């Protein structure tokens, strides 16, 4: 299971805690906080392993990643404060609705965004699927930053990583090609996860009995994911991503209805 999670997580730039946590707690009877801690360790393993492959291919936009990390980390820390103000159930329904909307938007756009030179945070990478060098710039940096703040905030509230939001924000809104988006999101999820993992470790929720085998499985899977992500066409990647978003939405709805989690 950890292997499969590693492949998908690293291929799509999402952590997948939203699927992993209920699976661990329901299928394996892992206590919920231990399940969350295990899934966070898996996210870190995915991010670190996959990033080695992405960064050596120049697919990760390191500067863009750092910039948006400011927004997501600040958002996540503030998330704890906002949690008092909003009902968790309402938020879970909203989260599911936004996921469906985002999947629909990605579907409507069909393929990938057309890369455009904007002079902001420009980068280039070689795409083996099209055998072309892709050059692109970033659009609407400010709006993307503000929305990432929101995404980080929501993930702080709901205890999910928010990779599912980062990818559409960078891709649809900021005009970053899907492959660069996935690589950059992959870099970012490791940062948020590491901060929460340290907290979970300190509180003693880390259980090597689950975390160590899961991490080792993930590391193997996360070697395969980036290769798939790099070779597949952006269109195919986009479709897989949309399906995963819909699965996430269903999981969130179930959570909102009090089933599962």
């Amino acid at each position, binding site marked *: 299971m950890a292997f499969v999670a590693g492949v998908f997580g690293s291929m799509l730039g999402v952590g997948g805690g939203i699927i992993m946590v209920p699976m661990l707690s329901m299928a394996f009877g892992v206590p919920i*906080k231990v399940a969350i801690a295990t899934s966070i*360790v898996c996210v*870190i*393993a995915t*991010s*670190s*392993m996959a*990033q*080695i492959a992405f*960064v*050596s*291919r*120049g697919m*990760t936009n*390191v*500067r863009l990643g*750092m*910039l948006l*990390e*400011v927004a997501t*980390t*600040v958002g*996540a*820390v503030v998330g*704890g404060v906002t949690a008092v103000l909003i009902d968790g159930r309402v938020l879970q329904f909203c989260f599911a609705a936004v996921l469906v909307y985002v999947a629909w938007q990605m579907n409507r756009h069909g393929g990938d965004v057309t890369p455009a030179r904007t002079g902001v945070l420009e980068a280039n*990478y*070689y795409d*083996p699927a099209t055998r072309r*060098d892709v050059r692109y710039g970033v659009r609407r940096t400010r709006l993307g930053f503000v929305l990432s703040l929101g995404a980080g905030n929501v993930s702080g509230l709901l205890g999910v990583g928010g990779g599912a939001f980062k990818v559409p924000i960078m891709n649809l809104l900021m005009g970053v090609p899907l492959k660069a988006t996935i690589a950059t999101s992959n*870099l970012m999820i*490791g*940062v948020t*996860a*590491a*901060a*929460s*993992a*340290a*907290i*979970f*470790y*300190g*509180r*003693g*929720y*880390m*259980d*090597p*009995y689950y*975390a*160590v*085998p899961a*991490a*080792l499985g993930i*590391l193997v899977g996360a070697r395969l994911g980036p290769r798939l992500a790099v070779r597949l066409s952006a269109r195919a990647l986009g479709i897989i991503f949309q399906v995963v978003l819909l699965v996430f939405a269903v999981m969130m709805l179930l959570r909102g209805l009090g089933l599962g989690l």
Partner: protein
Amino acid sequence: MNVPPEQASVARAHVMEPGERAIRWILLCGIAVSVALMAAGLVLGIVRGAGLPRGVVPLAELPRALAALRPAAYLSLGLIVLIGTPFVRVAGSLVVFVRERDGRYVLVTAIVLLVMCLGVLLGKV
């Protein structure tokens, strides 16, 4: 600039920038050390016939537990290294930005590192 052949085959026309090389190197080391520690823990567990331990060793007791060759200590340290790797990665990026005199991204990266540490200090589960 000459690119070593093995690097050229991996990167396909991409020559890594110093920042990218630093990230790759830090992550590689982090994973290698962490996997080695976890493997050591697993082997110790098998040798001692104890199986996988439940629960991690608190930081304060870690040195003594390591010296006593407790499997849990090695597994815990492996997890700590894994969790710590992204922190080191951000710190490494900071160093690279400082060297490149990229003031804006020195600031950006310093904020990320600061918020990460704040999050750990203030964090509630």
